[in-house]
């Protein structure tokens, strides 16, 4: 019956999609457990870890800083304009700092770093897979999980809190610069209000989010790179999949942590 068919087809497709997503989540979880187990036991590779920390932390600073600066300024402007409607313009410093530290700082930094780092990790590992470098490493008495994956995941989990801290400070400063420069706020009063409304809980949740985002964005990059196949096209697919997975995971975990911490 065609009517039933047209009704069923999208349902079947939806079911298949949901199953596919579940399978990916399951495989990612298994991958995560294996990665953590390997990262927790020697041999460790401090030189590889430092290299990844520099690659992720240092070289992401410009893009994270710029994003935070512009977003912080735009946010202050919007809160000011929106607040005018209920003559609540004075909430600019308080709302800006809360929005930046609780949500925008970690999420924006996470997404920007994922765009840079998850894709690069996936491309590099996928290329190594295609050219049999991963197989070769195993025959050279070295575990690619420990040599390649563990340093990436540890470095990313460690560097994201640092980057988010920077993003928070620059984001607040962006709002401050716009509010004092354009909207006529008093500089000293703006900063003291900011300080008054910023709570320890905000900073802690911000850094927890950062560490989790760092972990999942490296996990997505390594997972898709490590299990890629099919030549140059496979490398391209791994790169795209890594960024998409990282974005979804970051937004998902952000929501989960926000609900858990601020309910």
């Amino acid at each position: 019956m065609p009517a039933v068919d047209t009704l069923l087809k999208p349902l079947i497709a939806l079911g298949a999609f949901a199953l596919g997503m579940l399978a990916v989540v399951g495989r990612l979880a298994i991958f995560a457990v294996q990665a953590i187990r390997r990262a927790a036991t020697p041999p460790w590779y401090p030189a590889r870890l430092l290299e990844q920390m520099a690659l992720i932390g240092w070289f992401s600073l410009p893009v994270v800083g710029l994003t935070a600066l512009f977003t912080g300024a735009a946010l202050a402007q919007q809160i000011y304009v929106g607040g005018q409607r209920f003559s609540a313009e004075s909430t600019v410093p308080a709302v800006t700092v809360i929005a930046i530290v609780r949500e925008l700082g970690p999420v924006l930094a996470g997404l920007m770093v994922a765009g840079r780092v998850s894709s690069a990790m996936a491309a590099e590992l996928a290329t190594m897979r295609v050219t049999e470098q991963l197989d070769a490493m195993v025959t050279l008495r070295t575990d690619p999980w420990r040599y390649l994956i563990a340093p990436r995941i540890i470095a990313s989990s460690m560097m994201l809190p640092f980057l988010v801290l920077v993003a928070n400070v620059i984001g607040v400063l962006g709002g401050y610069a716009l509010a004092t420069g354009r909207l006529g706020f008093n500089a000293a009063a703006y900063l003291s209000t900011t300080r008054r409304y910023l709570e320890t809980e905000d900073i802690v949740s911000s850094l927890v989010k950062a560490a989790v985002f760092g972990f999942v964005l490296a996990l997505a990059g390594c997972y898709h790179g490590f299990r890629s196949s099919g030549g140059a096209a496979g490398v391209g697919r791994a790169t795209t999949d890594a960024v998409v997975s990282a974005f979804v995971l970051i937004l998902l975990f952000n929501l989960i942590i926000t609900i858990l911490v601020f309910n």
Partner: protein
Amino acid sequence: MADRIAVSGLTKAFGPKHVLEGVDLRVAPGESLVIIGGSGSGKSVLLKIILGLIKPDAGSILLDGQELVGLKGRAQEAARARFGMLFQGGALFDSLPVWRNITFALTKGKLGEGKAMHALAVRVLAQVGLEARVADLKPAELSGGMQKRVALARAIAAKPEILFFDEPTTGLDPIRADTINALIREQVTALGATAITITHDMASARKIADRVAMLQDGKIIWEGPVSALDSSGNPYVDQFVHGRAEGPVATAITG
């Protein structure tokens, strides 16, 4: 003497494609076996299965009597540490300089002992006929033939007991190829290594091999001492050795 490696009943399919369909193969300690066979017949897959890089569907692989199939963790690492492999495509780490590539198995990827390792890498490079300055280059700066020789140097640098060479002389000029043949022979004769070499180069096979086996249609269809290569009485082997387009191999591929 007991076999170093004893493969029996090994099968492997990729989806609907049956690559190995019951391979039986034995290699004695200190023996040099050459495997020949048509392109795509599963020679590289066979070596990778023995190394545990690909899981077989069925069959057994004994290393000095110890079962390798299904081996995991530390036991697998210990078994693998006895092997060295030259991959068909080289598989050099392109993020590391040549000398770090060559000494990778010795340092297990760690830094340190830089001077001694560099000196060792230069010595092994000389063995494969490459100059000392190559040590400081990145793999991407080398020609294809040079990459192959660096990969060979990497495979033998840690002096493993068992050596696998997947087409060691492909892409080399005849003079360089002969250096490599001599080097592989030396690993076996002088250092007592056990070697399996895959090659399409019959001159090379004659220099390297104690014994030759031919893989065809997923099975070892012939094996014998290298001296019997020309009088095998096997039409597949004859066709392969003489490089003729007509014969049973061509029929098998097109038919």
